[in-house]
């Protein structure tokens, strides 16, 4: 990992559709070197995947997301890892983190509607062994995701020329 790798990661995180030629010009290395470095970053699973940030609300998709917090009794020898792995297997779980504070695990869950999310939590998550308590927060509106602000702002007026 050197400065060029970091720059490639920054550029790809922002726009994963940049081609090798373009990336080469941007980073001052050859296209072959770009391809080689990216392949290596993919192999090492530093690049996990190439995805798109979608404003689902705008797309008219009625999916509902919720943040679920769980109190979990850790297991001897494994702590939270084994239970976390079981939870992570559900497709409905989009994100899962171990956190500090009153709760231990935090999930982001999506479903077709509120009932769907509630059913998933009550039928699949809450009854699991070692889950002591759940708290469900339905997401009402997303303002910013993955560093992308969903506010539409008019830019301030700029002069056509200035020195």
């Amino acid at each position, binding site marked *: 990992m050197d400065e060029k790798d970091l720059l490639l990661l920054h550029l790809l995180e922002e726009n994963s559709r940049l081609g090798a030629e373009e990336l080469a010009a941007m980073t*001052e290395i050859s296209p072959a070197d770009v391809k080689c470095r990216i392949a290596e970053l993919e192999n090492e699973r530093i690049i996990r995947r190439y995805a798109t940030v979608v404003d689902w609300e705008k797309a008219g998709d009625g999916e509902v997301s919720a943040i679920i917090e769980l109190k979990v009794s850790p297991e001897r020898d494994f702590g939270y890892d084994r239970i976390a792995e079981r939870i992570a297997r559900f497709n409905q779980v989009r994100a899962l983190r171990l956190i500090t504070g009153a709760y231990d695990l935090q999930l982001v869950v999506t479903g077709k509607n509120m009932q769907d999310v509630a059913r998933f939590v009550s039928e699949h998550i809450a009854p699991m062994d070692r889950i002591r308590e759940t708290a469900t927060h339905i997401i009402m509106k997303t303002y910013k995701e993955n560093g992308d602000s969903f506010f539409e702002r008019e830019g301030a007026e700029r002069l*056509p020329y200035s020195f």
Partner: protein
Amino acid sequence: MRDFISERARAIPPSGIRKFFDLALSMEGVISLGVGEPDFATPWNICESGIYSIEQGGTSYTSNRGLKPLLEALSRYLREHYSLAYAPESELIITTGVSEALDIAIRAVVNPGDEVLVTEPIYVSYPPCVTLAGGRAVPVPCPADGQFRLKPDCLMEKVTGKSKVLIINFPNNPTGAVMRREDLKGIADIVTDHDLLLISDEVYAELTYDGSHVSPAAIGDLHERTITLNGFSKAYAMTGWRIGYLCAPRELCDAALKIHQYVMLCAPAMAQVAALEAIRNGEEEKDRMVREYRVRRNLFVEALNRIGLECHVPEGAFYAFPSVEGTGLSDTEFAEQLLKEERVAVVPGSVFGDGAAGHLRCAYAVSRKDLGEAVLRMERFMGRLKA
């Protein structure tokens, strides 16, 4: 009625691109590479502290010199980043942009009849400020074949018994040129030998892409005869806040401070608070912007050379300065036709002095999307010229 306009006001020229300005404003869909400021909004933490200071009632004058915490933070910053030693209580002034710093620096040292050497291509404000102070600006050519750097022999050719001040600006607007340490050493010798004062405008210092910025006052004995100017506009995308600063040994600084207190009183209070936040917590955002400028520079300069506009690689600031030689057009004709036919605004080089003719100043401080579109339009334009 008498003619009320002073001789000095009459002696300074109107803006060299008024015609272009009006034309661009009357057109729709213009992509402007003519702007000398970052396209980023000021990072939010900086804006927030400015807003908070207003909410707290921080709307009065500050001391003439500026807010003490800002002066102290700057003094530390200059020492750590550029090995510059300026005492916060006696050798620094917070000014209303570098523009004011430049004006008071010149007025503090220039007598009527003094010659002031300025590197050409010349930033547009230098000669008028010299004229208003009663001095005479003498251009020193920094041609393309020397990467637009100031060379000792070019400087020597223009030094006379009347020379008093040398103004330099690196990284340079409009060329993007930078001076390396070895380049500056040769200049330092001449400045010292001929007992000149150096005014070094370093507002683009943070935007240095290959290597790091070298501040002249940190070289040899130059410190005692240098006025260093810098500001927050370019590095932190804060052009509208109007915060710059002047650094100089005490005696020079005292003279500039007298002028500052009468003509400006102080720099905007809330903007000084915002600048303090910039210097304390602005590094990460600044680095992010610098990284982006460098990426754009690489894309843009490669594209310019590909479409037949020969361009050296600018090592600093956010300007590319390609040559229009071989297109059969002068820089002014090229800029005017490009604006009318393809709605891309660039600044003709001759605005920056006769020695800068035959080039275009293209600011790449625009989004990559707009920059890409501008290149497509320029390529189309070049295609028609060749046909």
